[in-house]
C-alpha cells in the first residue's frame, strides 16, 4: 500500500477533506473532539475538588455552630438568592440551546442565545454586588472585620460570613471567567468560525458555564435556606 493510498483512506474515513480545524495528529474530527472533551472533563474534575474544600469548611463549621449558621443563613436575602438561582439555571439552559443550534448550523440563533447567556451572567453579578454591598454596610463580614449587631455575641457568626464570602467570592470569580469565555466564543461565532462539524469551543465553553451553575445549585440551599 503506497503512502498516497493511506492518506486517501484517512480523508475518506473522516469524510471531510478540507476541514482546517483538524490537527494533523488526529485522524478524524471525531477523535479530535473526543480528546478535547476529555481534557475539559479532567479540568472540571479538578474544579469540583477545588470547591469541595470550601464545602467541607462550611460543613465543619456548621457542625460546630448549628444554631448560629441557621440564624446567619436567614439574615441573607432569600428573594435575591432565588432570583439569582433562576437566572443561572436559565442561562445554563440557553447555553445548552446555543450548542444545539450551532450543531444544527443555525449560527444566528446560537449568537442570540449566547448573548442572552452573557446578559444573565451580568445580571447575576449585579445582584451579587448589591447583596455584598448590603452585607458590607451591616458589618456582616468575615473574621476580625465582623461587626454585625443583630448577631453580636453569637459564637461562629464570623465563621459563617467567612465561608459565605470565600465560597460566593470564588464562585463569582468563576462567573466572571465564564462570561469572558462566552464573550470570546460569541465573537468567534459572529466571525463565522463555527460550522456543523467544528463546534467544540461552543461545547467546552458551555461545559464551563454549566459547572458554574452546578456549584451554585449546592451553594444556594446551604447558604440561603438552611
Amino acid at each position, binding site marked *: 500500500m503506497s503512502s498516497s493510498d493511506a492518506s486517501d483512506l484517512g480523508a475518506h474515513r473522516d469524510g471531510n477533506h478540507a476541514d482546517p480545524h483538524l490537527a494533523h495528529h488526529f485522524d478524524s474530527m471525531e477523535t479530535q473532539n473526543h480528546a478535547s472533551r476529555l481534557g475539559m*472533563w479532567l479540568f472540571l*474534575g479538578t474544579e469540583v*475538588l477545588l470547591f469541595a474544600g470550601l464545602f467541607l469548611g462550611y460543613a465543619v463549621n456548621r457542625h460546630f455552630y448549628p444554631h448560629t449558621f441557621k440564624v446567619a443563613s436567614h439574615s441573607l436575602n*432569600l428573594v435575591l438568592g432565588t432570583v439569582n438561582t433562576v437566572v443561572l*439555571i436559565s442561562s*445554563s439552559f440557553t447555553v445548552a440551546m446555543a450548542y444545539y443550534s450551532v450543531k444544527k448550523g443555525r449560527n444566528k440563533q446560537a449568537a442570540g442565545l449566547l448573548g442572552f447567556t452573557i446578559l444573565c451572567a451580568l445580571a447575576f453579578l449585579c445582584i451579587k454586588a448589591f447583596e455584598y454591598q448590603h452585607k458590607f454596610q451591616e458589618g456582616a463580614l468575615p473574621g476580625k472585620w465582623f461587626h454585625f449587631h443583630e448577631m453580636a455575641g453569637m459564637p461562629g457568626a464570623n465563621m459563617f460570613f467567612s465561608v459565605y464570602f470565600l465560597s460566593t467570592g470564588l464562585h463569582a470569580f468563576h462567573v466572571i471567567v465564564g462570561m469572558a469565555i462566552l464573550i470570546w466564543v460569541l465573537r468567534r461565532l459572529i466571525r463565522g468560525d463555527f460550522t456543523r462539524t467544528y463546534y467544540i469551543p461552543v461545547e467546552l465553553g458551555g461545559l464551563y458555564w454549566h459547572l458554574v451553575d*452546578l456549584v451554585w445549585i449546592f451553594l444556594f*440551599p446551604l447558604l440561603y435556606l438552611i
Partner: protein
Amino acid sequence: MANQTKHTKAHEEAHEHGPGRYVVIWLLLLVATITTVVTGRLDLGAANLPLAMVIATIKATLVVLFFMHLWDSEGINRLVFGVSILFVMVLMLGVFGDLFTRMPMSLPPNAPSPALEQGLNAPELEHTPESPTAPR
C-alpha cells in the same frame, strides 16, 4: 474499519435529540428550585438539611447528565467525573468520621452535647484547650 465507521454513526445518532429535552430539563430545574425554597423555610426539624441536599443532588444530576451531555458522552468522561465525585466522598467521609466521633469519645460520660456554641451555657467546656475563642 467498517465496524469503526458504524460505531461512529451510532454515536452521532445518539446525540440526535430535539431541543425539547433541554426545555424539559429547564422546567424540572425551575420546579425543583421552587420546591427547595418552599420546603427550606418550613420547620421540618432535622429533615431540612437532608431534603435540601437531596433536591440539590437531583438538580445537579439533571444538569450533568443532560445539559453537560454525560448521559450520551464517551465512557471515559463519565469515568473522569465519577472518580472526581468519588474523591469528594472520600474527603467528606474521612472528615465527618472524625468530626462525629472525636468529641463524644473525648468527653466524660453524661457530658453535655459537644456543639461549641453551647460552651457559653456550659462553663466547664469553656476551658477546653481545643475550643476556639468565641468572637466577642
